[in-house]
């Protein structure tokens, strides 16, 4: 077999030249652009990873902020509820106090009204009793309204303490004698005689007509009052009835 050494050498040189050409115009540029693209892709991936990490961090921060807001919201609600409960309790207490006050006021007013009604009823009863007694006494002789009470008045004066009796008529003022009607001279004389007897001295008496006495006599001094009349008796009875009702 014949070997053409010139061809062998030329082909060797040709292949070496082709290696240089392809390396310069094909392999290096293409490998460089592939490497650049890989680097760019890696950079993009790194950037994406960094962005993702940043987003995760932001999301974690947002979640924490949200949790803090929710916690603050719950705390605010709890504070408001506690404050509302306190306010409610305070207002209920105030309302209770006001209700108790109003109730006490109403009860007091009701008591006053009842007392006033009782007084009115008592006054009416007293007037009715006086009217009844007056109408009954009108059927008796007129002197009975006075004469029948002279001894009682003298006995009441005699029962007074000595100092009171001795002071009666000593200051120069006349004693005031109230009578249900105008006294006759005989009645005035008899009464003054009985008073002198009861006091142990003669005293001046000024007579005043007081129809509300119905019957009886009442002696008034600046320091004492001696009552012996139906009005006084009825007043005492009414007072005792009232005390009895209260008791």
């Amino acid at each position: 077999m014949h070997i053409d050494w010139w061809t062998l050498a030329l082909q060797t040189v040709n292949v070496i030249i082709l290696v240089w050409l392809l390396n310069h115009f094909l392999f290096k540029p293409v490998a460089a652009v592939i490497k650049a693209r890989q680097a760019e892709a890696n950079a993009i991936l790194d950037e994406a990873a960094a962005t993702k990490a940043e987003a995760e961090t932001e999301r974690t921060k947002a979640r924490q902020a949200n949790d803090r807001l929710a916690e603050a919201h719950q705390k605010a609600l709890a504070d408001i509820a506690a404050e509302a409960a306190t306010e409610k309790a305070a207002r209920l207490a105030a309302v209770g106090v006001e209700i108790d006050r109003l109730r006490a006021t109403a009860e007091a007013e009701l008591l006053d009204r009842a007392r006033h009604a009782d007084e009115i009823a008592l006054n009416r009863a007293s007037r009715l009793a006086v009217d009844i007694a007056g109408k009954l006494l009108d059927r008796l002789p007129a002197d009975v309204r006075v004469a029948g009470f002279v001894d009682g008045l003298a006995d009441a004066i005699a029962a007074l303490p000595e100092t009171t009796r001795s002071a009666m008529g000593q200051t120069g003022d006349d004693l005031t004698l109230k009578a249900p009607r105008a006294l006759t001279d005989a009645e005035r004389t008899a009464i003054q005689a009985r008073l002198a007897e009861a006091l142990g001295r003669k005293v001046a008496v000024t007579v005043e007509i007081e129809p509300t006495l119905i019957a009886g006599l009442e002696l008034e001094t600046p320091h004492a009052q001696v009552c012996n009349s139906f009005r006084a008796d009825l007043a005492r009875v009414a007072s005792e009835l009232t005390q009895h009702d209260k008791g």
Partner: protein
Amino acid sequence: MTTSPLALEPLFHIGPVPLTSPVLITWAIILLLGVGCFLASRRLTPRPSKLQCLLELVVGAIDDQIRNTMETEPARYRPLIGTIFLYVLVANWSSLVPGAEPPTAHLETDAALAFIVLGATVYFGVATRGLGGYLKTFAEPTWVMIPLNIVEQVTRTFSLIVRLFGNVMSGVFVIGIVLSLAGLLVPIPLMALDLLTGAVQAYIFAVLATVFIGAAVGERAKPHPSSDKSAEKPTGKPTE
């Protein structure tokens, strides 16, 4: 007297240098690939065109092959392995051009390629291991193997030459014989088969060159980080 069909007749001379058909066709291939790559690589962008995608696919496939075989970064070996593959492929397929005969159908071209691979094997082995380290590989696993390892260097280079030459030359001869018998349409299936054979031979030649260089670089080759078998080193001898 009958001349050998394998003999090369000079087409013309430049001074004392005879220029044969393989040389001229190789120049044409160099011109085609060089100008084509120059034009194609002028406007490479991060957003690739279809042509750029094709270029990146070719380069990526070559890189993957080197990376998987040698388990190291392919940049250092890419120009040689890639050029061998592309040149052999284009040279084998040049038979499709009427009147052109593949340069690889002649021993001189195949021998040039094989000698370049042998030289690259020695160069990368010495560059990686050092001269002493590289020579010590001939004594592996024992010094008794030194003669056999030296013979292996020669025989595997010779096998590279013969394998490529035999496959391509036979294809050319078969098509030539068929053409002489039935010139119309009949050779087409054989030409298609010849294309497949040419691609396979280009791949085999490039892979064997990768394996030989990888074996010479051997244990000093830097493992690729992405390789699952990075701990394993290509210490085995290539099979042919």
